[in-house]
C-alpha cells in the first residue's frame, strides 16, 4: 500500500508507458540488427566468392564467361602473368603509404580493406604461384568453398577456396572476420543511437501528454483546495471526467452528510446555549427575589423557585454530558451480558418513590427465565429510567404506569406504558429530536431525554417505538432488544 501511495498518478503512467515503449522499440531494434547481420554476412560472403572467381577468370580465360574476357585460342603463360601481377599490389600499397604520409591521417578505408583481404594462388601440384603481400606462404586452408580458421595472432579469417575447371590452379581468398563485425557494430550504432538520443524527448512528450490528460484532476484539486472550511456546496459531478465521477459523487455524498451534521450541530449549540442560559437566568432572578423578599413566606417561595432552577440546570448539564458521551460515531462501549429484568427492577426501585409521591400506581412485570443480552447495563438503565421518569412526570396524579419485560419472537421486549395525556400520532417521531418538546408543557424538561434514549437504543441496534398507551390513552414506549447471543 505504501509503495502505491508514494508515486503520483502521472509518475506511474509515465513509468508504465516508458517501459512499454522501450520494450517495444528494443524488440524492433533487436530484430532489425539480427536481419542486418544476416544481410551483412551474406553480402561479405558473396563478395569473397566474387573476388575468388575474378581471380580465377584472370588465371583461366577459358572459363565459361564469354563476357568478361573474350576467349583466345592461345593459352598465355600463366606464370608470367602472375609474376607481373604480383608486383601490382606493391605498387598500390607504396602509393597508398605515400598518400598516408602526405596527409598524416589515420588508415584510409582503402588500406584498411587491403589489410583485411588476402589471397593465394596455388598450382595443381601444390606450389604457391601468387599471394597478396599480407598473405602467409603456408596454405591458408585445405578446404574448398567457405571455411573459417583462427591464425597465430588470434584473428579469425573467413576463406573461400575454388579450383579452376582443369584443376590447374587453386584460388584462396580470405577476409578478416572483424571487418564484417565492425560493419555490424556500425549498423547497430546507427539504429540505436537515435533511439537513445530520443529518449529524453520521448519522456518529455509522454509527460506532457499525461499532464494534459490529468488536467481535470488538477482543476478539481484546485477547486477543493481553495474552498473555505464552511463551504460545503456540492462539486460539479457532471463536468468531471467519467473515471473520477464516482469519486466526485462519493465526495459529494460526504459533503452532504457533513453539511447535515454541521447543521445539526449548529442547531444543537444554539439550543443548548438557550437551554443552559435560561435556568441560570431564572436562578439569578430568583436569587434577587429571595434577597429582597419581605417576610419569611415570600423568601421561602423564592427559595423553592431557586431550587427548581438549579435542579433544571443540573439535569440539563447531566443530559448534555450523556449526549456528548454517546458520540454518534462511536460503537457501543463496555458491552457485557445484561439481565434486563434486573435493570428494570433497579430502575423502577429508583423511580417508584416519585410515583408514590404523585399517588400513582407503578407496576413492574418481568417474565421469568429471560435470556441475558449483550449490551451496556448503565446505558440500558438510563434508557429505562428516562422512559419511566417521563411516564411518571407526564401522567397526572392517581394515574397508572406499567413496565413490562418479556420474551418476544425477535428478542426481549421492554415497554413502559401510562394512561397520561399521550403524544399525538403525528409527533411520535419528532419527540425523539434533540430539544423537541410538545407544546404547552408545565413539566420541566430539557427535550433531550428521548433523544438520549433513542441514541442508546440505536447503539444496541434497536429502536424505540411509541404507540397508544393503557386503555386507549397515554403512550407506550417499547423497544425490542435482539438476543444475538443467547447466553442463558
Amino acid at each position, binding site marked *: 500500500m505504501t509503495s502505491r501511495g508514494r508515486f503520483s498518478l502521472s509518475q506511474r503512467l509515465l513509468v508504465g508507458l516508458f517501459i512499454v515503449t522501450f520494450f517495444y522499440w528494443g524488440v524492433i531494434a533487436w530484430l532489425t540488427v539480427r536481419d542486418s547481420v544476416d544481410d551483412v554476412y551474406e553480402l561479405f560472403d558473396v563478395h569473397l566468392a566474387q573476388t575468388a572467381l575474378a581471380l580465377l577468370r584472370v588465371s583461366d580465360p577459358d572459363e565459361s564467361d564469354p563476357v568478361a574476357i573474350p576467349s583466345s585460342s592461345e593459352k598465355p603463360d600463366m606464370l608470367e602473368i602472375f609474376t607481373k601481377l604480383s608486383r601490382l599490389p606493391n605498387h598500390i600499397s607504396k602509393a597508398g603509404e605515400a598518400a598516408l604520409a602526405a596527409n598524416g591521417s589515420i588508415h584510409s578505408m582503402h588500406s584498411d580493406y587491403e589489410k583485411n583481404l588476402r589471397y593465394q594462388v596455388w598450382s595443381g601440384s601444390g606450389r604457391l604461384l601468387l599471394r597478396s603481400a599480407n598473405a602467409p606462404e603456408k596454405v591458408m586452408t585445405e578446404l574448398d568453398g567457405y571455411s573459417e580458421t583462427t591464425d597465430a595472432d588470434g584473428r579469425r579469417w573467413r576463406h573461400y577456396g575454388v579450383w579452376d575447371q582443369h584443376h590447374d590452379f587453386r584460388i584462396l581468398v580470405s577476409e578478416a572476420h572483424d571487418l564484417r563485425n565492425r560493419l555490424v557494430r556500425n549498423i547497430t550504432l546507427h539504429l540505436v543511437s537515435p533511439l537513445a538520443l530520443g529518449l529524453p524527448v520521448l519522456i518529455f512528450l509522454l509527460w506532457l501528454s499525461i499532464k494534459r490528460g490529468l488536467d481535470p484532476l488538477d482543476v478539481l484539486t484546485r477547486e477543493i483546495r481553495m474552498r473555505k472550511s464552511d463551504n460545503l456546496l456540492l462539486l460539479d459531478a457532471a463536468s468531471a471526467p467519467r473515471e473520477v465521477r464516482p469519486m466526485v459523487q462519493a465526495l459529494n455524498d460526504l459533503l452532504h452528510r457533513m453539511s447535515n451534521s454541521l447543521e445539526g450541530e449548529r442547531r444543537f449549540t444554539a439550543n443548548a446555549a438557550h437551554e443552559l442560559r435560561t435556568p441560570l437566568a431564572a436562578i439569578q432572578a430568583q436569587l434577587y427575589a429571595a434577597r429582597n423578599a419581605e417576610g419569611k413566606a415570600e423568601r421561602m417561595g423564592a427559595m423553592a423557585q431557586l431550587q427548581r432552577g438549579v435542579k433544571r440546570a443540573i439535569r440539563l448539564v447531566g443530559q448534555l454530558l450523556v449526549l456528548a458521551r454517546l458520540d454518534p460515531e462511536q460503537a457501543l462501549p463496555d458491552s457485557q451480558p445484561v439481565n434486563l429484568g434486573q435493570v428494570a427492577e433497579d430502575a423502577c426501585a429508583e423511580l417508584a418513590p416519585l410515583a408514590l409521591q404523585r399517588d400513582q400506581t*407503578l407496576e413492574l412485570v418481568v417474565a421469568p427465565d429471560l435470556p441475558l443480552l449483550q449490551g451496556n447495563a448503565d446505558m440500558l438503565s438510563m434508557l429505562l429510567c428516562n422512559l419511566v421518569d417521563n411516564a411518571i412526570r407526564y401522567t397526572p396524579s392517581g394515574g397508572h404506569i406499567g413496565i413490562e419485560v418479556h420474551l418476544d419472537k425477535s428478542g426481549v421486549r421492554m415497554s413502559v406504558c401510562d394512561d397520561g395525556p399521550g403524544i399525538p400520532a403525528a409527533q411520535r417521531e419528532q419527540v425523539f429530536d434533540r430539544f423537541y418538546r410538545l407544546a404547552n408543557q408545565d413539566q420541566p424538561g430539557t427535550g433531550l431525554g428521548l433523544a438520549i434514549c433513542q441514541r442508546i437504543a440505536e447503539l444496541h441496534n434497536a429502536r424505540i417505538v411509541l404507540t397508544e398507551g393503557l386503555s386507549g390513552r397515554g403512550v407506550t414506549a417499547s423497544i425490542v432488544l435482539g438476543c444475538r447471543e443467547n447466553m442463558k
Partner: protein
Amino acid sequence: MQLLIVEDDALLGAGLRAALSKLGFEVTWVRSGKAALDVLTVDEFVAMILDIGLPDMDGLEVLQKLRTSGNTMPVLMLTARDTTRDKVVCFDYGADDFLVKTTDMEELVARLRALIRRSGKGGGSFSVGDLKLDPQAHTVTKNGVPINVSKREFDVLRALMEGAGRVLTRSQLEQSLYGWSRNVDSNAIEVHIHNLRLKIGAKTLKTVRGVGYTISRTEL
C-alpha cells in the same frame, strides 16, 4: 458529631459546611489531600466527605492512605464522574458510599446519616414519622407503643427505615438479611412484609408491585 469535609472548591465547600453545621455536625473543612491527612492524625471524626479531584493528590490516594493506616471511619466520596466503573473503583479503594456532585443536599444528608448509623458511632435509635426503632435495645415503637416483632421482621424493618423514602427490592432485602451467599426461600421476605404490615399498618409500609417495598419518609 465531628465531620470532616475535604473539598477544594470554595463555593461547594462553604455550602456543605453551612448546610451540615445547621444539622448539628461539627464541621472541619480542609481543601487539600495533605491537609486532610494531617487533620486525620490529630482528630477523630464520625465520617468524612471526600472529593475525588483534589489539587495536590487524588482523593482515592487519601482514601488508600487512610485505610492502610487502619482507619475504618465511614467515607462518602463526592465526584463528578458517574459511570459504574468509577463507582466500582471507589468501593475498591474502601469508600462506603458514592455520590455524584449534583446530588441534592437532602439525599447527601440521608446517606451520611445512614453511614454513621451503620458504623455504630452515631448510636441511638432512629425514627421515621411515628415509628421508632432502637438497634441497641432491639425495640420498635409506634406512637410510643411498643410493637412486638421477630428478629427477622426487625431486620427487614430496620433496612426499610434506614432506606426510608427509597424502594428496596426483594433481592436487596434478602441481601441485608442473609448476605449474598445463602439461597433464601422465595417467599420468606413476603411473609415478613405481610406480618409487618399487620403490625405497623398497611399505609406505612407500601408495596410497589413487581419492584419492592418502601416506607416513605414524607407521608409519615
